[in-house]
């Protein structure tokens, strides 16, 4: 290893590594997924410009950064594909898996770019040329993508070598980099944010008259840091051919999972109890054998109709020995029972044909693990046991864990899920949610809104029109009578009291002391679950003050949403 030794900060390191690069990865992945041939002209559009262009499109004059119109003018039959980072990463798994057939550990720097420590792998295959050949042919055979392989010392040199399909001899990387333009620094930036910073830096360097890496790296490091900050320092080191961090290799490992095929489709709960216990025990054994513990278990089952049901449960049983199998058996049984009876909002209940338990978030035994509530103290373990006891007593769905989630109305802002079950918030709590009902939050939020009446001084209902104007100031409020006071309500159920048919029984009209609103909330107007409401905060005038109310006007009617009690 011939690393340039730096004056300060100890010896700089530059690992010899091979880089596998698939040209125009986003467009290659998109074309593969869309079923396009490799020679079709295609480009991936993100925002206002093309982020990747296929070889055929480039030949007809489409370039990265072109707008949609400009690209279509250059190549009228260009296929414009949507940008999707998830797809890029997903498709690249096939390439990474193919490369792992050849070498033991790879690092995916970004979709389209793989790092491989060259030393050991090249020795195994005989030479770097043989390694490169093996990689290219393995990737082409297994995934069908063409790729280029290069090797050099240090990150930037290796990436540039791969783009040129070169094997830079050991110790020659600094020369190889010297004449490269400063724009090539952006190739070593792996995240979009970082790349933007580097591109800014490069444009400033261009205006300062610095064109090549050797000119840039000739500048004193301290001055670069003082002028350009951390980005400049990073670029300076990368431009020298150094590595800023060692490669992080991933090892492919089989999932730890156990499966169970029902000999005949299970329809009854009794059939499942033993299966749940048995498969939990086998999962426990498999985990012990691998010397690991997991903090989540994915339970999935296949029904006779072909539906796949899946649910993730947390298994924070701490270090209690032997608790795992029993704990898991309960959860598997509950989940299967739920799927069989179809109480959840899933597909139609149907007999189950197979069951799979997969361990997730696997860690080695003995490694300390951060639990949901921090360490395992006596009180936490006691509370956890209490919850388990209640779940076995009342059923898993009766004991809930709650979280805040995003939303505007008080009801939308709560995410409740059976204790121990993973629930994904529908709305991100970190988003701003403009127009949400201001704090303080109401202490009582009715699970289902109740009808109520908001009346003006003359006793006729107050309405909110399309322009969010109230027809009259609210003066009286009538709530539904307490069902416990049915007898008192029956007396008022006289036609003379204004009750007709199945209408709810109204209580006494109560005078309004103060009110605020209406605050409009129109949500998801584009979808089927659109809602358009106007909210009103009302304080009642009573001898004891009484609670304040949150009322919502929706569909021509007032609803009692919450009580500030």
């Amino acid at each position: 290893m011939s690393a340039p030794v730096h004056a300060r900060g100890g010896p700089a390191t530059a690992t010899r590594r091979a880089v596998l690069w698939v040209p125009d990865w986003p467009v290659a992945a998109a074309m593969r997924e869309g079923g396009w041939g490799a020679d079709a002209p295609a480009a991936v559009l993100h925002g206002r410009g093309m982020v990747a262009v296929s070889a055929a499109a480039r030949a007809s004059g489409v370039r990265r950064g072109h707008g949609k119109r400009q690209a279509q003018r250059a190549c009228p039959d260009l296929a414009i594909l949507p940008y999707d980072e998830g797809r890029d990463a997903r498709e690249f798994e096939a390439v990474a898996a193919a490369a792992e057939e050849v070498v033991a550990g790879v690092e995916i720097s970004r979709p389209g770019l793989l790092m491989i420590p060259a030393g050991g792998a090249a020795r195994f295959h005989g030479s770097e040329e043989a390694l490169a050949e093996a990689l290219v042919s393995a990737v082409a055979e297994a995934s069908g993508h063409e790729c280029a392989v290069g090797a050099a010392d240090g990150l930037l040199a290796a990436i540039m070598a791969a783009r040129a399909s070169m094997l830079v001899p050991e110790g020659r990387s600094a020369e190889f980099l010297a004449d490269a333009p400063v724009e090539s620094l952006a190739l070593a930036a792996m995240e979009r944010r970082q790349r933007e910073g580097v591109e800014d830096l490069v444009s400033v360097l261009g205006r300062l008259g610095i064109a090549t890496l050797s000119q840039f790296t000739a500048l004193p490091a301290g001055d670069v840091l003082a002028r350009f900050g951390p980005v400049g320092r990073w670029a300076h080191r990368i431009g020298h051919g150094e590595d800023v961090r060692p490669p992080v290799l991933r090892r492919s490992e089989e999932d730890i999972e156990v499966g169970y095929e029902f000999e005949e489709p299970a329809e009854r709960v009794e059939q499942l109890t033993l299966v749940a216990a048995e498969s939990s025990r086998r999962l426990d054994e498999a985990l012990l054998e691998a010397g690991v513990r997991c903090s989540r278990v994915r339970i999935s089952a296949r029904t006779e109709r072909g539906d796949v049901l899946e649910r993730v449960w947390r298994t924070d049983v701490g270090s209690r020995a032997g608790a795992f199998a029993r704990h898991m058996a309960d959860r598997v049984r509950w989940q299967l029972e739920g799927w069989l009876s179809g109480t959840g909002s899933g597909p139609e209940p149907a007999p189950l044909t197979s069951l799979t338990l997969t361990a997730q978030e696997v860690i080695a035994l003995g490694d300390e693990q951060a639990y949901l509530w921090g360490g395992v103290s006596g009180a936490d373990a006691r509370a956890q046991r209490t919850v388990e006891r209640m779940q076995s007593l009342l059923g898993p769905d009766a004991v809930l864990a709650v979280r805040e989630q995003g939303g505007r109305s008080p009801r939308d802002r709560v995410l409740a899920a059976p204790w121990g079950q993973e629930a994904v918030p529908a709305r991100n709590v970190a988003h701003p949610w403009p127009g949400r009902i201001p704090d303080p939050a109401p202490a009582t939020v009715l699970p289902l809104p109740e009808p109520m009446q908001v009346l003006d001084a003359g006793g006729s209902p107050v309405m909110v029109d399309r322009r969010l104007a109230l027809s009259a100031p609210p003066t009286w409020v009538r709530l539904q009578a307490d069902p416990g006071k049915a007898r008192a309500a029956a007396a008022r159920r006289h036609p003379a009291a204004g009750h007709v048919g199945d209408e709810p029984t109204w209580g006494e009209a109560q005078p309004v002391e103060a009110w605020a609103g209406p605050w409009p909330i129109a949500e998801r107007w584009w979808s089927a679950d659109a809602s358009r409401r106007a909210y009103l905060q009302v304080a009642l005038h009573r001898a004891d003050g009484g609670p304040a109310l949150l009322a919502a006007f929706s569909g021509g009617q007032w609803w009692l949403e919450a009580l500030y009690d």
Partner: protein
Amino acid sequence: MLKPQHDVVGGSRAERLAAARLALAAVETRVGTTREAGDRPRLPLTETLEPLLPEGLQRGTVVSVEGSTSLMLALAAGASREGSWAAIVGMPAVGIVAAARRGIDLARLVLVPHPGTQAVEAAGACVDGMDVTLLGPRLALSDQDRRRLAARARERGSVILASGPWAGAHLTLAVERSAWRGLGAGDGRLRERDLTVAVTGRRSGAVRRVRVTLDADATGMRVATGSRVAEEVA
């Protein structure tokens, strides 16, 4: 335990007796068998509620709260913030956002909204395992069940906060009057409120009336947000 015995083996009879008594007392305090009625351990309480319960929220007691869910949540908040676990049984309508804003840690909060006919078992399990248990107003609990739960709480050192009347509660907090401020005629928003609470202790004779301000938010920043809301509406 062995070491002090070795030290006093050679001492006089009186010294050995004194040492033995000392050891016994140490064991008793550690196990907690002798506890004075007055110096029960306490759960932490939010500062705003200190005038309400100057002696603090004693472990092993039942506090009945009438007329305000916010007050119940506020009573539980101090303990929850300091690491206690809390359970809410039989209150399907409790506002979770309000609970979180009052300081209850949602990671240590367990909800049993509809215990149904097994209210006694659920409440009992919570009293056993959690530090604070909030019980809703319409639970299927007989007076005998309530006495048993109270005895269990005393034994386990947990606190029951019951909504509505509870025969034999150590402390009854009844909200007599609540006054909201911040609302106008179509403008403003609910900002803060004063609760007038009648505190009746089982031991203390007279009823004490205390005024506490919940949701107090001082400062002009809040006023500014209030006016902004009004503008949006207009």
